[in-house]
């Protein structure tokens, strides 16, 4: 076997053996890394689940279009044709001024309406849209406002906008937390490797004396770091699965109370793989930093 490849294999096996030989310290490091990963990934899951919940709620944005009292029949007809043909509009419902008044009466406001000389309410269209993006809502509102015979258009988009804003903050937080905990992970890994280096100091020195390059000396530590990161990621995925299991019951109970079929969505496979990959990489980086610093210090 090629010597270089053999050393890679030997380094990997050596790292694994060392890890298994000290299961407690390796386990605690994995746990520390796991917790550092759980926070941003858990937050990510919370945000993505909320996003899903928001998307699934029957609160599609509505637009109310009020016709001008002096709108001509031709204008009214043009508006109706426009609304029926518009590609962004899912449903449309005409609410005449009489029907609107009746609704008010039915809601127990007849005392007030009875005192009115004439019906002050305009004729209106209530529209639901195919898209719920705030921008789409806004463009449509502007477009409809410009039609002749339209008094005003109210877009009921505030709720959607707020939710999007909150989710936006959540996503930003996930990013910031990921960066922060990525750094923490590098620090944890680097510290654990430093302990390894101290234990194996003699081996490093002897290897150098008989012609080992820095790259050769680094190799087993880098494998140790990578393994440590991977085991930390597995710990995090385990913690998240347990959290999910614990929350599943209460969440579906709550959802049922609101008549929603919502259920928690676990981490997707690609996202889990990404967590594993990132943790491995960061811990590897921590190991690299620790060994390189030690090699500089040894001279």
């Amino acid at each position, binding site marked *: *076997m*090629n*010597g*270089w490849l*053999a*050393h890679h294999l*030997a380094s990997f096996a050596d790292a694994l053996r060392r890890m298994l030989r000290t299961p407690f310290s390796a386990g605690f490091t994995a746990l520390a890394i796991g917790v550092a990963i759980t926070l941003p990934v858990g937050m990510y899951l919370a945000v993505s689940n909320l996003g899903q919940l928001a998307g699934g709620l029957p609160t599609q944005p509505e637009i109310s279009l009020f016709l001008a009292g002096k709108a001509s029949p031709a204008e009214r007809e043009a508006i109706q044709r426009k609304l029926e043909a518009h590609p962004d509009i899912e449903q449309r419902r005409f609410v005449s001024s009489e029907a609107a008044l009746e609704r008010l009466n039915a809601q127990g406001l007849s005392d007030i309406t009875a005192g009115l000389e004439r019906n002050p309410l305009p004729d209106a269209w209530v529209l639901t849209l195919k898209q719920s993006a705030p921008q789409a809502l806004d463009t449509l509102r502007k477009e409809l406002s410009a039609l002749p015979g339209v008094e005003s258009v109210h877009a009921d988009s505030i709720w959607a906008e707020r939710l999007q804003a909150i989710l936006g903050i959540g996503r930003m937080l996930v990013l910031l937390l990921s960066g922060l905990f990525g750094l923490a992970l590098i620090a944890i890994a680097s510290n654990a490797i430093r302990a390894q280096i101290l234990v194996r100091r*003699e*081996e490093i*020195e*002897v*290897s*150098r*004396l*008989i*012609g*080992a*390059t*820095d790259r*050769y000396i680094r190799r087993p530590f880098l494998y140790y770091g990578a393994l440590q990161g991977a085991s930390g990621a597995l710990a995090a995925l385990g913690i998240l699965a347990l959290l999910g299991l614990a929350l599943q019951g209460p969440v579906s109970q709550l959802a049922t109370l609101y008549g929603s079929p919502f259920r928690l969505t676990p981490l997707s496979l690609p996202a889990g793989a990404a967590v594993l990959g990132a943790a491995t990489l960061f811990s590897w980086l921590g190991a690299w930093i620790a060994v390189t610093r030690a090699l500089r210090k040894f001279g």
Partner: protein
Amino acid sequence: MIQFSQVSKRYPGGHTALENITLGIEKGELVFLTGHSGAGKSTLLKLIAAIERPTSGAVTVNGQNVGRLSRHAVPFLRRNIGLIFQDHKLLFDRSVIENTLLPLSIAGFDRREAFKRARAALDKVGLLNREKSMPIALSGGEQQRLCIARAVVSRPALVLADEPTGNLDTGYAIDILNMFRDFHRVGTTLVISTHDERAIQAMGGRVVQLDHGTLAAEA
């Protein structure tokens, strides 16, 4: 092969270990380095292997100024030198064969070829039957022989031995000296530091004597 030109070595703290040494060693030569304890024998050997760097003057090995080697070039210099240390520097958490394999692994040797060579080296020093033992289970003389096996396993053209027979009884010492004689016969350049007068008499090589860091006499 080795050239010292007006080399001085002052350790941090101000102690001068070597002072104005000029010395040449030819390819294939056998050189004994003698002198009292603290005379600078180990320091001289360390300068050759770039373990220490001269404070002034130049040490060249095969035309390379080893005091000026970059950090990345040093490992490649050392791979061509077999080093036997005064304090052994064996790895006590690895078996005899693993210790012997280390230089070959470092040099990137094919694994099967490496095993073959390591066994041959252990055979040469009479430790083949102990290949699976841990160094802690070896006697002082056996540990010293393991050091020699590790130093010669990659067949270096130059071997530097620092007190290879120190604190060994005469029987062991003669064994070890005979091994060095074999290396010398096949053309290896050897620089051996020793207090051991018997060794020098028995082998009859060139003797370089150090006294308080200066070249005292050559015979």
